[in-house]
């Protein structure tokens, strides 16, 4: 199975070990994650949303649009990124 993979800023840096363990599990589950090219910040569940809700939704929408181009379902490891993306998806 191939999925469009949205890493998110934390998984790329300070939560690196989470990505490592997810990759190890994926090998056994026969899942391939293809990183979304040029992904941006998910729209940070609260950090950007409280500053400007519209900005948060637009950031998430850009990621959804990029994943749509890949014609694959989107997968993210970060629960906050997942929530922000699904919130934008519900709104659109």
């Amino acid at each position, binding site marked *: 199975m191939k999925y469009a993979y949205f890493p998110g*800023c*934390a998984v*790329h*840096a*300070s*939560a*690196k070990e989470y990505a490592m363990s997810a990759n190890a599990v994926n090998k056994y589950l026969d899942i391939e994650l293809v990183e979304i*090219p*040029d*992904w*941006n*910040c998910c729209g*940070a*569940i*609260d*950090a*950007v*949303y*409280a*500053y*400007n*809700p*519209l*900005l948060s939704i*637009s*950031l998430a929408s*850009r990621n959804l649009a990029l994943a749509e181009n890949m014609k694959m379902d989107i997968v993210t490891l970060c629960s*906050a990124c997942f*929530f922000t993306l699904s919130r934008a998806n519900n709104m659109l």
Partner: protein
Amino acid sequence: MEVNSLRTITPQIIDPSFTEETMKLQGGERILDCIQCGVCAGSCHARFAMDYSPMQILKMAHLGLKQQVLSSSTIWICASCYTCASRCPRDLDIPAIMSGFKNMAMKNNVPAPIALKPKFHKAFAEIVGKYGRMHEPELKMKLINKTSPGELLRNASLGIRMFRKGKLKLQPSKLDPSTRFSEIYKNALNEEVKK
């Protein structure tokens, strides 16, 4: 963090339009559905540090206590963990309402009890606008008190430990400049101002 004792709601200035304002917020449309069951207050992991519980904040929004809600520490301490929202029997999106209150407090220039929080939101959005992604060391540098040597030392030692594990990137990862990310960012900001 200091443990706050439970406060009771003592109505001061009542602003009836506040309830309507809250209902215009994303997730706040059904705020009057709240039955004050207390599940949100009971499940809140950060409750010990708040001055009012999430349940009390919702009640205060019903009553129209605008000033008290916007100056409470609760709205800033909420970590958006969504434990309350997933347990709420009336299916209210409580963290989104809290975010809405934060936004309202920042717009109305209500001083936050934790002065760092509004700065954090602003700095976060600025860095995302600059690179398209979060760059954690830069966010930290924007927020720490550079005049306090103790704070600088603590952060430096944490930074070194993180760097050794490859968890700290000195160079921010940037987006492809040919894509229209900055346009999206600017448009979203301008659209919000127009409202």
